[in-house]
């Protein structure tokens, strides 16, 4: 049974994404909308990770010893300036997508396992992850012309 690996992976991905949001907020404090929104979204990700914890424990006992190659580092600290902001947002965009597809997979497994508690967690969280992606996309689309064409 490999569900535990996925649950652990998602818990770590959400924790990393929370740190990414906090990092981008702090690193681009002068972009006040990003500072505030990123802080709110970091809180969402932390709550997601927390909600996953009991299921990591529950399924962890049956965990396989498959070596874990799911992890990859996407966000290595904030860059500066308009272009830096764009690239930082793009890193988070990829990280949020990793969470998004993991929620889908875990939702599938939860259905197969008839685990209603886990399904409730998936239902509550995956919509927030989808909105995080939409926000990142909206903000990047807004920033791209100025950052790529005009800013020095």
């Amino acid at each position: 049974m490999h569900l535990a690996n996925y649950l652990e992976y998602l818990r770590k991905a959400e924790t990393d994404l929370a740190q990414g949001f906090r990092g981008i907020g702090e690193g681009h404090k002068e972009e006040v909308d990003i500072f505030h929104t990123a802080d709110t979204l970091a809180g969402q990700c932390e709550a997601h990770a927390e909600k996953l914890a009991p299921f990591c424990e529950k399924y962890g006992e049956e965990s396989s010893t498959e070596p874990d190659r799911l992890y990859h580092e996407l966000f290595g600290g904030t860059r500066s300036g308009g272009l830096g902001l764009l690239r930082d947002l793009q890193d988070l965009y990829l990280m949020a997508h990793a969470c998004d597809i993991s929620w889908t997979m875990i939702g599938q497994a939860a259905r197969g396992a008839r685990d209603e508690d886990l399904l409730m967690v998936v239902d509550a969280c995956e919509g927030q992850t989808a909105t995080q992606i939409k926000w990142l996309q909206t903000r990047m689309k807004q920033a791209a012309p100025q950052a790529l064409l005009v800013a020095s």
Partner: protein
Amino acid sequence: MNGQPTAQNTRECGADGDLPAFRNWDNREHIKELARLWNVDQLTIPDWAPPTHAMQIWRYAEQGSIEFMWIQCTNPAVSLPELHRIRSILKKEDLFVVVQDIFLTETARLADVVLPAATWGEETGTYTNADRTVHLSEKAVDPPGEARPDLDIFLDFARRMDFRDRDGNPLITWEHPEQVFEAWKECTRGRPCDYTGLDYKKLRSGSGVQWPCNDEHPEGTERLYSDNDFHTRTGDCETFGQDLLTGASYTEADHRATAPDGRAFLRAASYVPPREPPREDYPFRYTTGRTLYHFHTSTKTARAPQLNAAAPEVWMEMHPSDADELGISEGDLVSVESPRGSLEARARISGIREGVVFVPFHYGYFDEDDPEVHRRAANELTITQWDPVSKQPMFKMAAARVTRIAGADGTPAPAPPARRE
């Protein structure tokens, strides 16, 4: 729904960064209509992202990627949050600022070029009220000195820039307000704000008329949506919507999936606590607002003797128990400070909520003895932050502290009488 007629008609016609006649920037058909109407290449119309809002424009100017700003009929050096920041951006060497207004405002004082403009009664044009009533306001007297109607300034600019349509003909073909109105009517055809049934003759023959006014409603429309049919169809709507927490744009597919079909949407949003709650060193919730006697930054109303006499000077309102605790009595001079700035005002002890202080935002510096001393405007203290959907700055939620500076000498605060509850 807008607060003022000028806000209503500037939003309708696209002067606030939205597209004219409530067109949707994310709807290719709407963009095509505009391109046809103006005979321009579709690519000249910026439709790639939501309009760049004012707060973001200021940020780009601060960073230096905007080097030219033309400010028309608004006074950000008093009306925007965190005024020291706004002043420092306006003063930047690498930002060329043009201000077009009817008086030498606080903003105009910081401009590189001032374009003196005419006011109502000195120029002809229509206003649309917040209830959609279109009024014609005709020129009665010539503008003073070098002041020119705003339209003449824009037309002169277009001529000098030699703007052309896609056939190489002049882009702007109008010269008079009535011709502009006729062009605007075409732009509104079939849109919620349909003006096609109006003309100057009709507007002169009676009072104002409420849009939509067209073949179907030749005398205008007093009440909207009495048939419970709203402008929410995907091809018709002004926006596909946004997430209320983050401002994330919904796509056409998202919108279509909700099967709007003329139904109204009521969206719920979860409570989000303010970003700067009161704390030990800044224990009050600081909020700003208006008095009946002044309009916005009082550019006009402070010059009207009767209005100015009714509310001549800034004041701060405070609850009696908060005042007791700080030893503040009616009329005492106090300093109000936030992490960003401070002001001085006389205290009005009022029925305001405990823990909250209020300062009206109308007062700036143009009528002060020394306009370089900045201890009066409410927005010295406010926070640079805005609502993610409306982009409205959050003027009502800063933290502040209040300190008594001097006694009242028996005179009450210069606040107008409290309104009756």
